[in-house]
């Protein structure tokens, strides 16, 4: 196959399907074993300095916020990130834990652009490589399929392509141009789900974003769940299982785990908290104060929830779906 064009973006995580296969064979238990643990244990065991990390979410919805806060508390350094995110990426960037970012979209949707991303990238502290949203998800899909790359018909002809690490080739079957995306296997994936059993069989209600693909593209996968259920409940509706046990390394019970974001069918987004954060994030000192209060200032997610307060959590529960 002739490479016709190539992006000049740095490939922050090289595809290695054989290495991934060997990893899966060696480290992913084929037996169902209990993996329930605290977020401290999960992060200290499975997240290392320099790891390539991914979080799965849709905007402020279903973000693995309690896990992201724990990663920050434990002070991991030189992380590389796959960037389709908002609040968790803002916090990781603000805590100065990130060296590189495969970015597709980091911003606050209706509320505007990320001041923290601006500071991190405009100062030259964080290096970026560009991808489209589908491209980064298809990169996960390629890794999940155990193949080195996947072709797509996006990104071609643009600077997004030029600043990516993709390549355009002539397809040997049709002769048409196609864009090859390198498989992206994460060192660690963080995903928040509605319910999981102690083995890591996970169910997500509503849309599933890129959870299916990212879970299968993660060497180490930490799950936080609103609810820990008995396996019999999983077995009652196995069609709801997006992430089966064999993909998962740790299961953490985290009610309100995506606060201040939304969890569909469970609770609504904490509008006031997010608006305050957004205003404060314009200022370095105030951003630091936010981290001090809500991340470093609490020992764990339980303490975080106490700080937020039961009344507030009840209020968010009463506004499920914003209806």
């Amino acid at each position, binding site marked *: 196959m002739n490479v016709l064009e190539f992006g000049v973006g740095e490939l922050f995580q090289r595809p290695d399907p054989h290495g991934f296969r060997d990893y899966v064979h060696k480290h992913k238990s084929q037996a169902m074993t209990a993996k329930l643990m605290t977020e401290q244990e999960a992060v200290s065991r499975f997240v290392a300095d320099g790891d390539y990390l991914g979080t799965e979410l849709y905007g402020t919805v279903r973000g693995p916020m309690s896990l992201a806060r724990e990663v920050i508390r434990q002070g991991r350094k030189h992380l590389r990130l796959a960037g389709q995110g908002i609040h968790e990426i803002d916090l990781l960037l603000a805590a100065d834990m990130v060296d590189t970012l495969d970015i597709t*979209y980091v911003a606050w949707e209706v509320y505007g652009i990320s001041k923290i991303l601006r500071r991190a990238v405009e100062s030259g502290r964080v290096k970026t490589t560009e991808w489209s949203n589908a491209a980064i998800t298809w990169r996960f899909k390629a890794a999940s399929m155990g193949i080195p790359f996947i072709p797509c*018909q*996006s990104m071609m002809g643009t600077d997004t392509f030029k600043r990516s690490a993709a390549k355009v080739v002539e397809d040997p079957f049709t002769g048409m141009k196609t864009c090859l995306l390198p498989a992206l296997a994460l060192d660690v994936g963080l995903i928040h789900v509605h319910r999981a059993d102690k083995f890591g069989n996970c169910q997500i209600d509503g*849309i599933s974003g890129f959870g299916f693909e990212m879970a299968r593209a993660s060497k180490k996968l930490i799950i936080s769940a609103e609810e820990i259920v008995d396996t019999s409940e999983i077995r009652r509706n196995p069609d709801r299982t997006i992430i089966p046990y064999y993909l998962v390394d740790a299961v953490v019970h985290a009610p309100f785990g995506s606060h201040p974001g*939304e969890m569909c069918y469970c609770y609504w987004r904490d509008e006031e908290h997010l608006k305050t954060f957004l205003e404060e994030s314009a200022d370095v000192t105030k951003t630091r104060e936010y981290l001090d209060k809500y991340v470093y200032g609490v020992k764990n997610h339980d303490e975080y929830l106490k700080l937020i307060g039961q009344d507030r959590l009840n209020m968010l529960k009463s506004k499920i*779906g*914003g*209806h």
Partner: protein
Amino acid sequence: MADFTIREQIICTAAHLMADGTTAFVGTGIPMLAGMLAQRTHAPNLVVIFEFGGTGAQLTKLPHGVGDSRTFYRAVAASGICDVMEAAQRGFVEYGFLGAAQIDMYGNLNTTVIGNYWPPKVRLPGSGGANDIGSNCWKVISIMGQHTSKVFVKKLDFLTTPGYLSGPGAREAAGLAPNSGPYRVVSNLGIMGYDEKSKRMVLVETYEGVKVEDVVNSTEFELLVAPDVKTAMTPTERELRLLRDDIDPDKLYR
């Protein structure tokens, strides 16, 4: 004549472009409001698609993002990114609605950086799903809230999302799907289309009280002008009532 804001005019104009019984990829903000208005007026069977997997929602409340639970409220399917992006890639999705910080005469869009690539003067969000929508939807409609020469530019600082790239034939030469691409631009001054031959942006309608030269002078590149520039429909009383009382009662977009 009813009193309305320019934003309400833009929302109504965008809504009119959404045909009943078609599919539209809808992004955060004005496209969502337009989709909601279209569903309540002329296009009850408009199938709105959101990039995190919501297909065919009945938009009763304004979503705040393309993945919140309102994007699949009473939808026909709640799947994921791959499902909806692949639907567009195989040719299913008719319209795509996008916004940007900059647009050029071929409808190419920038949502990545202002200034050099790295380190940039201003780091913007990035492509998100825009590049995929611009690559794979049949007709792309750009919503541009500020029609100025800093936004409608000769040269983008960064070409995030493909329009007609460098002109006729360029999309196909780059490998993108034939017969797809930019269709309309809705700005705060009027409506633009694209010249069939040259693929260049052409002014087709202005809003009431806006002169053709106002639009031309607010555009850095040479804007083509249709021989018969029309005056765009103004929002009706009913549309305004729906927008104010029902669709955006919190006045997020007034």
